[in-house]
């Protein structure tokens, strides 16, 4: 046991030396670079032109912390519209709707729409209405992919009756079937926004 204690002491001495050495060489990290997130969209603008009237809706991404209430398992947080939050349409009247997507960080104002246009072959917009009272057609200024399928970035909306509801607009990345419904299209969503709409009498 005596030999064991003697050996233990030498081990302790070794350990102390190495511990000391580690602390001497220990240092702190430099401040990391703030990462500019290119994949997320910060703002989406919808321009709805009905006759000579133009309406502009801007949806700004804004996350709220989900942690405010741990007991609520279905809470959601949203971005929010800056100003107007309802698309106003006229029954039987065609409205031209265009979408532009922006990534605004640290004063930079990156127009992501150009990326979407450049990659028209691997992107597709989908529109789903509830109630389904608005007919959607590509506008003349819309882009087509190499198979002649419209991107639906620029669209004409024509309501068939008055009422109000919601429209879900989704941009799908790499869909496997662009002609299918949102359910069957495959791919994954780059963005998905639900907007209130109202159709009034002309």
């Amino acid at each position, binding site marked *: 046991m005596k030999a064991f204690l003697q050996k233990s002491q030498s*081990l302790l001495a070794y350990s102390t030396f*190495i511990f000391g050495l*580690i602390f001497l060489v220990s240092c702190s*990290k430099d401040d990391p670079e703030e990462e500019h997130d290119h994949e997320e969209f910060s703002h989406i603008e919808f321009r709805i032109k009905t006759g000579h009237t133009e309406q502009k809706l801007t949806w700004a991404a804004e996350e709220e912390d989900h*942690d405010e209430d741990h007991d609520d*398992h279905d809470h959601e947080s949203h971005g929010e519209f800056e100003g107007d939050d309802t698309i106003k349409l006229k029954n039987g009247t065609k409205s031209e709707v265009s979408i532009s997507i922006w990534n605004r960080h640290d004063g930079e104002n990156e127009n992501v729409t150009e990326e979407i246009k450049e990659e028209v072959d691997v992107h597709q917009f989908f529109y*789903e209405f*509830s109630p389904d009272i608005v007919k959607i057609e590509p506008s003349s200024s819309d882009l087509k992919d190499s198979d002649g399928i419209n991107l639906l970035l620029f669209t004409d909306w024509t309501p068939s009756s008055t009422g109000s509801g919601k429209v879900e607009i989704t941009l799908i990345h790499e869909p496997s079937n662009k002609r299918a419904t949102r359910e069957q299209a495959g791919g994954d969503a780059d963005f998905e926004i639900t907007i209130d709409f109202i159709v009034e009498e002309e």
Partner: protein
Amino acid sequence: MGVSNGLKRLNFLWKPFLRLFCPKCLAVFGAVCVCDKACAQKCDINLEVEVLDQNDGAPINDAIVSTQNEDHEIKNSNQGTTIIEKICPGNLQLTISHPHYEVYLSQYSIDSDQTLKIELIRKAIELNPVNLEQFLHRSQSQTLSEKILTQSQIDAYAHQNISDALSTLSGVSMIRLGNEISKPIIHGMYGSRVAIVADGHRLSDQEWGADHSPSIDLNAFQGVQLLKGVSTLKYGGDTSGGIIILNQSIVKPIDSLYGSVSIVGSSNGLGGSLASRIIKSYPNGFHFKINGSYKKTRDLIAPDYTLSNTASSRQNVGIHIAKKTMSNSWEFTGSVFQNEIGILRAAHTGNVRDLIIAINRNRPWLIEDPTFEINSPSQMVTHYSALGKYSKRFDSTSKLNLLYGFQHNRRKEFDIRRAGRSRIPSLHLRLITQNISIDYDWFSKGFWHFNLGTTIELQDNEAVPGTGVSPLIPEYFKYKMGSYISSTYKKNNDLIFELGARLDYDHLDVKKFYQLKDWENRKYDEKYSHFEIRKTASSQILTNPKLDFWSLAVNSGVYKNFKSNISIGFNYILSQRAPNVAELFSDGLHHSLATIEQGNLELPKESVHKTLIDINKNSGKLQWGITPYVALAKNYIYLQPIGTITTIRGAFPVWEYLSSDAQFWGIDADLEYKFKSNMIYQSTVSYVAANESKTKNPLIDIPPFSLNQRMNYRTKSDFSFQVTSDWVAKQSRYPETTFKSSYIQDGQFVQTDINLTSPVKSYHLLGFEIRKKFINKENLSIESRLGVRNLMNLSYREYLNRLRYFSDDIGRTIELQFQIDF
């Protein structure tokens, strides 16, 4: 008959006399009597012989020590020491034999009482690796039975990864992301609670994530052990699951050149792998080994469709140089491991709606012709490892071991991105880990063995900039220091006590950007204002959390072997673990599950009190072992969905690291029945259940009940046939984590419940394996193996496979392997 019996009874009178006339004794008698001086001396010399393992200096019990005079043949049992009494002066020829060591033969000149220290060399049967299991695994756990993978089992998984091989052991399951990414779960615990130790060096490779595979190639090792109990303290006190030990083969100090080549072709994925090693050894104890492996597969195939973008490639190169002598030894090991894995394309989801669509489909939305090409989403991991070890033996009872290890792990994860950014990793982490350990072994003259030591770990993680995505894991420095002592009291082979303790100190120095709103909503701005550095123009706040944790581990065990060949081991384990960086600071989107993963800065350290009883019957035709266990965890940390959050991409489930008290209980069982010496039935059973203590809600990611059976038949002509049956039950205990999602479908506003933890159906997989040795010569053996997994091509999904929402598991797989040893 009566006279004969009477003569036999008088053997004790006349047999010693007759022995004097045997040729050997006459020679000794003559040699001794020619010397007057010697003849005049009395035969009263006592010789103490200590028998030690040349590799690690451990005493060897049960060695047979004999002299040229056959009267002296003693089986030692007392810490490797034998005392031979009443030896006559002169030359003494000593022979020591042991089933697992080379026979020792030497001549000594004896003229007075003395002590001899003899070091035996372990047998190494390089040309027949199947037998390596007998001695490769030196028992490390004294009071719990060790579970090992034999060389033949390792060979059968040459084309798989390490977790697949480990899951054949009772009590071990896998959590997976597809077929190629998997990690072991032991008794329901995984991640930082299960350590992998290769060549005495703990693997550090971002092991926290369920979607991270161990960065190590099983083909580089010849032995695998699963350890629990006191013997794990040397490697850490935070491994409440257990420790997986990977060993290299033992090399004999002789002039030799040998090696092996393993070639595997697989029908599923039309893949193949090649693994080879070559070893050169010298009589002075110097040897070196070079090993390498390469594996490539194209997209894997489920029974009904191709799993598009599941191709993978893996390569590993390693070198091992060592010199081992009686008094000291040194070794250097270096390796480079690279793994590139495609992740099922259909599993890359944009939001919870995509996930719901995927769950409602029976098939992936993208099915293409199989290809070797690996596209996004994918992972690429490169792991460099360098290890230096030095051992110095002060005397036959004590030994000092020094170890320095360096590991460099680079992880890149690629997502589907726009504008060519898919080629830029969305996650790029570079982790450098350095370990220093000093440990000291001491064998007392009595029954005690002590092992004590100190370990230091430095970790530097860099979230490499330029990804264009906020890093999931922040930059950090980590210092971890620990000291431990373990002791074993072994009165004999039938009664053993073990006790050990370890104290660890963890210091984390993190630099992380938080969203300012998150920081404030969680009230971190009030509690941790001293961590704040500065706010940025983009509504973020740079923080510098510095956290300290002290952790204690205490392990104790007792083992008793009864005369009925039944042994009982009892172990109590206290394991404390500081929360890891992912649990504290994760913050980001996982596309593979469309989940946002969030850490929790306020997590306390986790404590697990675990009790195991290990009962084994070790002889006869029927051998079995059962290990029931109970674990009570305080502040057990786990990742679970807690709700949804809506971003501009849509809604996402949020998974957060939670902490609560929990209870685990379960049982592992092994059974082996030898119908004949060449016909053996084996089965393993594993069951584990876990609850939150307060709510009694089942914990997430707990493996379901499983029963694995093997029937093996072997002929004398080196032919063997094995049938396998693996049945996995439906998990009936799972947490209800239902949340609602609403969307528009067919003009209707639909609200759907989604439960990511609901179980899948039970399944039963059959398989078989045929082995045939074509050449079995002294310098060359060639064995072929034909193995079939999922023989019935069954469509099934695994509960702990995180891609179960998107696709079936892989279908029938036929593997043809040639193992050449030379």
